[in-house]
């Protein structure tokens, strides 16, 4: 399942995001990269249907995003926010269960099939030990994984993530990265994620979309466009990309 952006314009206050002809395809992890305020989150939120663009010509496998009902969109696209501040302290299981909302009408509660889906997600991610704990007891790394689990319970082919590794320690950072790669490879998901730290990009993404001041600067496979000149002009800061033990590293 792929997302094709024909024309997208989002405006708020004096910021404008303008994207034309962009394709996010299946089985790969696409990273949105750019300086703060470039429009990464805005693009994600527009694709998730959370904000109303002024021009919104976006197609998911030929379906026009703007014409989908909320629950229809939820079955195709899920959105993983950066943090979750719950007012109520749900159990992890009940929290993941909420991913099933799009399949249920306003007066119904989850049924057996929904519970089975959640159990499947929990065992796929190895979260059995967390399932009965309360969300507010979790570390921020665990909470990030649980947010992704909810998106998996939503069972959409496209998963949008807003800086999923920010504030995580090294181990949890790698856990999230490996999970996203696994989802793209084994589960045929279309993963689109904004990334704060460029050091992670070669390990995380197959494909890059560089955004600067609301415009696309460059797009392409990571192996081709993860280059010093482009990154320098993207961040307005001198840096070098070096190779060590077969991995690309940033020197600044």
């Amino acid at each position: 399942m792929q997302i094709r952006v024909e024309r997208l314009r989002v405006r708020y206050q004096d910021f404008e995001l303008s994207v034309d002809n962009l394709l996010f395809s299946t089985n790969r992890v696409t990273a949105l990269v750019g300086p703060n305020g470039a429009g990464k989150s805005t693009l994600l939120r527009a694709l998730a249907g959370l904000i109303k663009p002024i021009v919104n010509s976006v197609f998911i496998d030929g379906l026009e995003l703007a014409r989908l009902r909320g629950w229809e969109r939820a079955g195709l696209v899920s959105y993983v926010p950066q943090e979750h501040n719950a007012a109520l302290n749900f159990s992890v299981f009940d929290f993941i269960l909420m991913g099933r909302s799009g399949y249920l009408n306003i007066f119904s509660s989850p049924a057996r099939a929904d519970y089975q889906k959640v159990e499947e997600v929990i065992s796929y991610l190895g979260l059995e030990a967390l399932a009965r704990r309360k969300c507010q007891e979790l570390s921020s790394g665990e909470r990030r994984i649980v947010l992704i689990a909810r998106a998996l319970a939503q069972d959409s082919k496209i998963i949008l993530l807003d800086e999923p590794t920010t504030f995580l320690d090294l181990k949890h950072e790698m856990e999230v990265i490996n999970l996203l790669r696994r989802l793209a490879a084994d589960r045929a998901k279309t993963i689109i994620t904004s990334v704060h730290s460029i050091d992670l990009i070669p390990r995380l993404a197959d494909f890059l979309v560089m955004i600067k001041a609301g415009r696309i600067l460059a797009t392409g496979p990571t192996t081709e466009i993860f280059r010093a000149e482009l990154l320098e002009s993207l961040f307005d800061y001198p840096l070098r990309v070096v190779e060590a033990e077969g991995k690309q590293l940033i020197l600044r």
Partner: protein
Amino acid sequence: MLMTGSQRKIENRRILYAAILLPLFLLIVSLCLGTLKVSLREVLEILLARISGEPAELLTTPSANIVLNIRLPRVLLALLAGAAFSVSGASLQSLFRNPLVNEYILGVSFGAGFGAAASLVLLSRNFPPQILAFTCGLLAVALVLVISEGARNTLVAVLLTGIIVSALFQALLSALEFIASPYALQSLFFWLLGSFSQATWSDLLWSVPLILAGLAFLLKMSWRINVLSLSDDEARSLGLAVKRERILVICLATLITSAVVAVAGIIGWVGLIVPHAVRGLVGADNRLVLPVSAGLGASLMVLADDLIRTLFPFEFPVGILTSLVGIPFFLYLIRRSRATWS
């Protein structure tokens, strides 16, 4: 994991049964209490005779008259009022992601109180006061939400606007009292303090179906209310029509509250205390919180009314009692949640 899940399910089911049985038990016991003592056995016989529908000599006795026409409507109204305030409180707290919110804070109580009073004073006594009570209750909560919308500190904004809108409706109420006839004034005064003492079957005719219908819909939506307690962005990305569903919950909560206020007056703070206690008992999941709050709220309200009927030699308004207990509890909650105020 599945084992603990099913064990928890059984435990939850026990709590649910208790929440249904406790108010039923209290209903029967409360029918015995009062100036005229009626034995438990006699009460059961009267109820059975009434339900069977056959004319029995038992039903013509003074005790039967007191049990069926004075105590039964009063106790039923107390049960439904407790359930209504608690369920609407629990739903609104989830919806606003704020344990301090309740119908009293949101201006619904005084809005509905004004509406019902206006109906009694200005329109005919035969016109059901529930209609104006609901309209004005809805108007009050809409005012609070529109005025406080977009404020940076939403919690403080909602609380402050709620106080101001309540004050507005209190002023309108005072104006009504000023123009009301002395006769109307007396009953208005007592009704406003909150009391079940004047409940009659004809009062219940309108309120009971409204409360039961509102409760049924809110209970059907209990899982949905879980999802609505997430941030707007999260709920929307999960596929909810957030704004429409929020408005529906607010309308239902206002409906059941104002249906009670229209016949029993302003009884505050029950909807604050009960859901809080229930969450401590069963956790955050509204599929349990809502029905258990209904049962516990109904029970507490009947107990409060029983206390008043047996301890005081005169009719002490139950609304004063709940405020005297509820306000210190509110202050305690505010102190505990100080972190969210900064």
